[in-house]
Every structure is written in structure tokens, then in C-alpha cells.
């Protein structure tokens, strides 16, 4: 008997943050997020495919498939060729299916928009943005071959392929050595207010995007002596508060805020490298004003957004992962425990807000690119935002039909004289 010799296969362990996603992804919350780039003209699928083929060369890790071992999930390299297709699924539709061996991302085009949808285990917002930027870069260079014949605009992301595949958690954190394990986080599992509502058909994501001027919103934030993210987070809390009834106001509103760790620790990885923090606001009896909320959460941002706090939090997670007892628990039981723990954590969260920040592209591309947008699948109303040039896009995703919170949020800004363009998928 002779079995055919196969090519050697490369496999990688999941990083600390990735481990959570395959266990908790389901039909209700697919753990998929989307980054889009809207141009001023129709997308040519053939050029896009060419650009994708070129892009994937610099991101070989994106060709991974996710597989189940006996104790852990792992990424396995594949020979699959990613193909662009016209957008045909609802926003952030499931990608990971444990029974099929498929890529963990997809590239869609629709009219003037290129969208990249990614399963979160593969990468975080920043990593995916690097991929999309490279894709758009190649697309425009191919599309305007004549113009960029002699001189190619520079894309300022030149990390080596190895650097892009880095498990930066492993690099910067060692886990604690037993000393802090006894320090139980007395964050007194508070129950947060939870937004309820009628779900959309087939649990599809309802997306509402508001595009506005960065300068104008920044101006409003400055008036309140705060940053853009904090201002919008406070406004989000305020909009939720306005929709709560008196009894519900006994519970605090807690927002989960992802933190990009690349700003604290040196890393060029295109994989996951983020942590999260919670900011909360407990209402008192009297009427609450927006400025009260801003004050309060500015304080928690200052308090929690320090390298020490982040170190402490992640090292705890890492030591849990490295704990010998945890390691030898079979995967199905691990999955189950992660799901249970996730349910507990969920009780303490009302919503989430995530700011990807400024998207930089070579300035030669300015005439072609209208805006960048980001949104995610969500179990509860969630805001994602990013800006390109002076266009800030704030995307609300929600599994609920109701849009009152979104209406209040945008109405508050439009009442300040900010011009807003709203687009929505439903």
C-alpha cells in the first residue's frame, strides 16, 4: 500500500483573545465584523480579485482555517484561494462553521463599496484594517495603472510577514506566577441594565450608519473638554438612559470598550491584540445631564486605561490559559465553560463602543475614496466608528427592530447643527 505524500502542513495556536470566539460564536452573535471602503465609482470585480490575490501574498495568515483539536482549537494553513463576490448575505452573516473547512474571511463588493468580513478569531479591527487598506491600495493602483505607472504611492505598513503573524500576547505577557492569583477581582459582578426588544427576522443585524464631519464632532467634544471617543460614549449612555423607564434606572449602564494594545505595547501583528475595559454610569435620583456622564466616564477612562491595569488583566487571562488543569480539559468542556462565563459577563454589559480611529491612505487616493466604515455583529446595540479625512462614520448595529436609541443619538448631534447622512441596511 502506498499513500501519497502530502505537503507539510503548518499550524499555529490561537492567541489569548482568539480562544474566546470559536466557543461563543453562534447564529445570534456570529463574532464577525465588517470593514468597508466606499469609493466614488463602481467597483470592478476583476480588478478587485487581482488586488485580493496580491494582498493575500502579504497576509498568508489570512489563508488559515480553524480546526478543533482534542484540547484546543488551532489554525491550519490551507491552499484555498479567496474569491471576491457580489454582496449577497446579510451583514456579518456566520463565517465559521466547525464542520466545514473554509476561510475565515470574505470579500464582497456592492456598487461602489468593497467590504471585508472577518471572523474575530483571525484578527481584530486594527489587523483587519491593515488587510483592507492593503487591498484598497492594490485595487486603486491596478485600477489607475496609467496614472501610477511611474510612481507608486507608498503604503506605510511594511511589517515583515513574520511580524504580521506574531502572537503579541505571548510576546508581551508571561502570565502571573501565582502571586496575584489569590487577589480576586472584587469587581462585584454588578448587573447592568440590559436593552431588550423585538428581534429582527432571522436575527439579522440592523445597521444604521451616520456620516458626519470629524471637525464638527471634535468641536462638540472640545466644548465639553473631552475626547471624541469619550464624548460619543457619554452620548450613547445618555441616549440609552433617555429610553429607560424609572425602574430600569436603578441599574447602571455599562459600556464595554475594546482597547487596541498596539498603542501600549510594540507590535505589528495583523492578528488579535486587544483587551477590553468597562465604563459604567450609575444614575442618581435627579435628572441626569450629558455633562455629568462625561465627567464620570472621563474619570474611569483615566483610571482604567493604564499599562498597569492592562498588564494585570491580561496576565490573569494568560495564567488561566497556561494553568495545567485548564490545559488538559477536553475542548468541548472548555467551550461549554467559556460559554457559561460569557453569559455571566454579559449580564454586566449594556452596550459596546469601539473606535478604530483614523484610517490613513496615501493622499494620492483622496479623489477616489469616499469613506471607510466599520461595523460588527452584536448581541446588544453596539457602536463602531472610524474616520477617513474629515468623514467620521458612526455605525450602530443592533439585533433589535427598535431604533429609538439610535434616533436620540443622532438627533442630539443634528440638534447641535452637525450635518448627518444616514444610511441603513433595513
Amino acid at each position, binding site marked *: 500500500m502506498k*499513500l501519497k505524500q502530502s505537503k507539510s502542513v503548518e499550524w499555529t495556536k490561537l492567541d489569548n483573545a482568539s480562544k474566546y470566539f470559536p466557543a461563543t460564536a453562534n447564529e445570534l452573535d456570529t463574532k464577525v465584523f465588517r470593514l468597508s471602503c466606499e469609493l466614488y465609482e463602481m467597483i470592478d470585480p476583476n480588478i478587485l480579485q487581482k488586488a485580493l490575490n496580491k494582498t493575500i501574498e502579504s497576509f498568508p495568515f489570512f489563508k488559515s482555517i480553524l480546526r478543533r483539536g482534542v484540547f484546543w482549537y488551532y489554525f491550519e494553513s490551507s491552499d484555498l484561494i479567496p474569491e471576491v463576490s457580489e454582496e449577497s448575505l446579510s451583514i456579518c452573516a456566520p463565517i465559521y462553521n466547525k*464542520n466545514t*473547512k473554509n476561510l475565515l474571511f470574505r470579500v464582497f463588493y456592492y456598487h*461602489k*463599496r468593497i467590504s471585508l468580513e472577518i471572523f474575530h478569531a483571525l484578527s481584530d479591527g486594527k489587523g483587519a484594517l491593515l488587510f483592507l487598506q492593503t487591498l484598497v491600495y492594490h485595487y486603486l493602483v491596478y485600477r489607475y495603472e496609467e496614472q501610477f505607472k511611474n510612481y507608486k504611492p507608498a503604503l506605510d505598513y511594511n511589517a515583515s510577514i513574520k511580524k504580521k503573524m506574531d502572537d503579541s500576547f505571548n510576546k508581551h505577557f508571561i502570565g502571573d506566577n501565582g502571586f496575584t492569583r489569590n487577589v480576586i477581582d472584587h469587581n462585584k459582578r454588578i448587573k447592568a441594565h440590559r436593552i431588550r426588544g423585538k428581534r429582527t427576522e432571522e436575527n439579522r443585524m440592523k445597521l444604521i450608519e451616520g456620516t458626519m464631519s470629524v471637525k464638527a464632532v471634535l468641536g462638540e467634544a472640545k466644548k465639553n473638554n473631552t475626547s471624541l471617543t469619550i464624548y460619543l460614549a457619554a452620548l450613547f449612555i445618555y441616549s440609552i438612559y433617555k429610553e429607560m423607564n424609572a425602574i430600569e434606572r436603578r441599574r447602571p449602564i455599562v459600556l464595554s470598550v475594546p482597547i487596541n494594545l498596539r498603542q501600549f505595547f510594540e507590535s505589528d501583528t495583523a492578528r488579535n491584540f486587544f483587551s477590553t475595559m468597562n465604563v459604567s454610569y450609575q444614575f442618581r435620583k435627579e435628572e441626569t445631564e450629558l455633562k455629568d456622564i462625561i465627567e464620570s466616564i472621563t474619570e474611569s477612562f483615566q483610571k482604567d486605561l493604564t499599562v498597569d491595569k492592562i498588564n494585570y488583566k491580561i496576565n490573569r487571562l494568560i495564567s488561566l490559559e497556561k494553568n495545567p488543569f485548564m490545559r488538559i480539559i477536553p475542548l468541548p468542556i472548555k467551550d461549554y465553560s467559556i460559554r457559561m462565563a460569557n453569559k455571566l459577563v454579559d449580564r454586566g454589559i449594556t452596550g459596546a463602543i469601539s473606535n478604530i480611529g483614523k484610517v490613513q491612505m496615501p493622499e494620492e487616493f483622496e479623489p477616489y475614496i469616499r469613506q471607510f466604515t466599520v461595523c460588527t455583529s452584536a448581541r446588544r446595540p453596539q457602536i463602531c466608528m472610524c474616520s477617513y479625512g474629515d468623514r467620521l462614520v458612526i455605525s450602530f448595529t443592533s439585533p433589535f427592530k427598535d*431604533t429609538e436609541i439610535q434616533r436620540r443619538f443622532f438627533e442630539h448631534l*443634528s440638534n447641535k447643527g452637525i450635518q448627518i447622512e*444616514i444610511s441603513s441596511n433595513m
Partner: protein
Amino acid sequence: MKYCSHCKVYIRGDKLQCTLCENSLPDTHDEEETLFPTVPLIFQSHLALRITAFISIAALVVSFALKEIFPSNINSPLFVLLALVTMWLSLIVVIRKRHNIAKTIMWQVSLLSILSILWDWRIGWRGWSLDYVLPISYVAAMFVMYITAKIMRLSVRDYIVYLLLDGLFGIIPIVFVLFDWITVYYPSIICVAISIIFLSAILIFEGENIKIELDKRMHI
């Protein structure tokens, strides 16, 4: 772009109502582009599955009814029940694991072993499950797995672990022989012999692949 005077926002796309407040928007007669595709709802009705479920229940009810009307020594409703359980379990496994053919075969073999012993025991132990069903299914699975893998051009690493597992299963009948649990010996002996030859072949020729696969799947 249309303007909603209630929310004081511009609405992009071909909307008739404001996304935020749901009031109707003024008709501007402009050609507005659609921003998102209309995705039809997927109806997960699976009519075939429903019909099968209905027939299963009907058959079970009828068999119970018939036994009450025409009493006999044979416990026919139990046969029907066991047959249905067998069918449904296999069906579920096939549907759930359909993307991994080697895994499906392994699951079917394990299921078949357990169910056949159960059958044999429930209808008065005659030993046919250990005599024939187990050894034959292990050997059959080995060949089926190898042939399908070749036909479907699966890469070695996709099925090698399942083949190894089935080879190990195939050695189990040696226990039946040693403890004298069986009356007919030759299927078990053939099964064990083939399994050992098979195992030695894959270990000698594919040992490296097996090691890599196991490292990957068993990493802790």
C-alpha cells in the same frame, strides 16, 4: 439625498421612510442608488425531514396499536422503536458531519457497534452482533474510508487519524476470541489480522504524517 425634517438628517439610499423616526420622506424624484442588497429570508423548513419525522411517529403508534389488538409473543413495537432510533441517529450524524467523510464513517461505525449490541441484547442475546456485525463493519470501514479518500482525493492528513482509529477498533475483536464470547470465530480473526496488517502499513508508511496530525490535534 432625502432630508428628514423631524430628525434633521439626510437619508442616503432609496428609502421611502426615515430610518430613525419612520416618518415618510418627501419624494424628490431623484434616482437614488441602493446601498445594500436585499437578502431574501431563508426558510429552513426541510420538508423531507418533517415527512420522515411524521412517518416515524405514525409507524410507532400503529405498531403499538396493532400489538394491543393482535397480541403476540414478538415485541414488535420495540423492534420499530429500535429501528427508528438507529435510523435517526445515523441520519443526524450524517447530516451534522457530512463535510468530513472520514469522520462520518468513524461515527457510523461506532454508532453501529453500540446499536447492534443493544439490538442483540434486547431481542434475546444470540451473539450475532459480536460474531458478525462488529468485525465486518470495522473491516468494511477501513476499506471504504481508504477508497473514498482516494476517490475524493483527500489529502492524507485529512483521514489518516480516522484510519488509525478504525485500525485500533479493528483489534478489539481479539478480546471476543480470548474471552470466548463468540461462537463463530473466523470474522473476528480475519478482522484482527487485517487490522494489524493495515496498522503496520500506515505506521510504517505514514508514521510521520500521523505524528504531525497527533501533535496538532493533541497540543495542550
